[in-house]
């Protein structure tokens, strides 16, 4: 026997296997593609509406909203003034519309991730079995190259906002699931036992003790999710999502250094602003933990 050559599956069989998988998935997308599109239609309408809203709003109002949110989040003048200056620069350099489009998809993706991720995280924290089933799925979602899952998504839903959103969410949802699960599991057993001893039922424990005490961790998950959604903007633009990713893609294929740099930096600036604001908000969430000078 020849040990240098691996005993491969026959060429024909391998081809048939691949063909078979492709064909059956094509069948599947033909059969269910339309109903899936119909299912996602409300989401699409919401995205379109939200993007239009951002674009139709006069820029001074957007700036005011940005300033207000960053101040409410961080309680720091420095961060809010920095955010406003960054947005002014972005607008002045002609990236306002793309930035609004990116902001729209990132914010919608974050909402979807929160709505899906937190309940899954709660489920994982409650049942060990759910945790052992879901953890490998999360691992796959985070490590599989994004281009690979773009293929079935595009086959199913074509090119556009919804498949883009889906791709972003697949990549961005794991951290919030993981950190919700972790946060709930890290809640002090003594406190939970006290809740039990006073006769709290599952809901009272979940909403009265576990989620509030896990909130700093859950919020760290939200922060991570936003960051990852932003980092998917360029890849999402490959399947038809408008925003800062589109000019970056154009810059790659045409070797436009300045265009790529400016739009890339705009993504970075958005990321930094959102990160600083959400992080300092997260820190304030646990203010009660170090409120005192007593032991």
């Amino acid at each position, binding site marked *: 026997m020849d040990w240098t050559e691996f005993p491969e599956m026959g060429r024909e069989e391998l081809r048939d296997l691949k063909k078979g998988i492709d064909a059956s998935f094509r069948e599947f997308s033909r059969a269910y593609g339309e109903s899936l599109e119909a299912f996602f239609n409300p989401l699409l309408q919401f995205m379109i509406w939200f993007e239009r809203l951002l674009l139709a709003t006069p820029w001074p109002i957007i700036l005011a909203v940005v300033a207000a949110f960053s101040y409410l989040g961080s309680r720091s003048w420095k961060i809010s003034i920095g955010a406003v200056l960054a947005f002014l620069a972005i607008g002045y350099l002609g990236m306002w519309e793309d930035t609004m489009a990116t902001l729209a998809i990132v914010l919608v993706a974050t909402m979807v991730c929160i709505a899906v991720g937190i309940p899954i995280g709660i489920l994982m924290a409650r049942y060990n079995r759910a945790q052992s089933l879901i953890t490998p799925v999360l691992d796959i979602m985070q490590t599989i190259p994004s281009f690979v899952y773009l293929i079935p998504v595009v086959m199913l839903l074509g090119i556009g906002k919804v498949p883009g959103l889906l791709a972003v969410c697949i990549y961005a949802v794991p951290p919030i699931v993981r950190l919700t699960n972790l946060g709930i599991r890290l809640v*002090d057993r*003594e*406190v939970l*036992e*006290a*809740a*039990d*001893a*006073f*006769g*709290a*039922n599952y809901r*009272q424990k979940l909403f*009265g*003790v576990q989620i*509030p*005490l896990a*909130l700093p961790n859950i919020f760290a998950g939200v922060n991570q999710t936003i960051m990852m959604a932003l980092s998917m903007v360029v890849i999402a633009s490959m399947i038809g999502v408008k925003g800062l990713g589109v000019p970056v893609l154009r810059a790659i294929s045409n070797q436009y250094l300045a265009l790529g740099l400016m739009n890339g930096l705009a993504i970075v600036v958005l990321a930094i602003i959102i990160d600083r604001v959400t992080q300092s908000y997260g820190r304030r969430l646990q203010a*009660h*933990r*170090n*409120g*005192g*000078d*007593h*032991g």
Partner: protein
Amino acid sequence: MADHDNIKVKIKSLYKVFGDNPQSVIGEVQQGMGKPELLEKHGHVLGLNNISLEIPERKIQVIMGLSGSGKSTLIRHINRLIEPTAGEIWIDGEDVLSMDEAALRDLRRFKTSMVFQKFGLLPHRTVQQNVEYGLKIQGVADAEAHERSARWIARVGLAGFEDHYPGQLSGGMQQRVGLARALATDAEILLMDEAFSALDPLIRTDMQNILLDLQEELHKTIIFITHDLDEALRIGDNIAILRDGAVIQEGDPQEIIMTPADDYITDFIRDINRSKVIKVRSIMSPGGVSGQGAQIPADTSLEAALAPLSKAENQTCTVVDKSGAPVGTVSLNGAIAALTPPESDEPVAMQY
């Protein structure tokens, strides 16, 4: 009190085995297999070994033992935070082990409340919200919960701290919050799991005083876990001493000091301040009452009795009960003899 002999909580032949399959070995344990043998043969740990206790209503029942004796496990069986392997638990004649989830929740909401060694306060809620916690779970309306919690916060001396977070308070203050939270639900049974053990000695004495003061007016059934004999003697109406998951002696504090059941307990009580703890009634000779001479109330400690005894005629006094009726006599020699602790047969210092 007329009803002081009513049994509030009854524990009968309670066993708890920790391990993978406790039911498979419980038979052998009930046949008398001991802790070391059980661990060796079956890899299971014996937590509670045939515990039977009758806890009287409106009294403070202390359960004392060193770490590993199973005392915290035992108290958690009363409200079924831990499920027993075998045995019975009755509260007010109701079988706790046959309760379904809803009935058990009601038991925990309305009949028992608990104070924890590490306080178990909700760190994200203020003092006021913590004290209201049990009431909110009971479903008490906001306004009433607010009013009741405010009353208890004031009662434990924390008025003015309502809006502080637990993390901003000292340990003693946090445990006052824990106590107020437990009292606010108006539960008849108060379970206190080493409630004062984490506190500094001075604060601990302070908290014991608060508890005794409250008990004088509330007359709850209190089950108090401690590893501290002084604490047990000070607050207990009744003490059960636990070792290796079994009750080795049970009785009122005087009984335990005057007639320790074995060497383990003898060693335990050797270092206590006998002159403070032992009461005249424990050493008096009943009868032989003339009603003459100096009188000493039966609940006087030896320490306080020595001076009157030494001045008395024949160095003997008449002991009188609360109503002033003579019940016996006590002599100076008897009092001095009682100050010497009984000797154990062997040194047991390293036993636990």
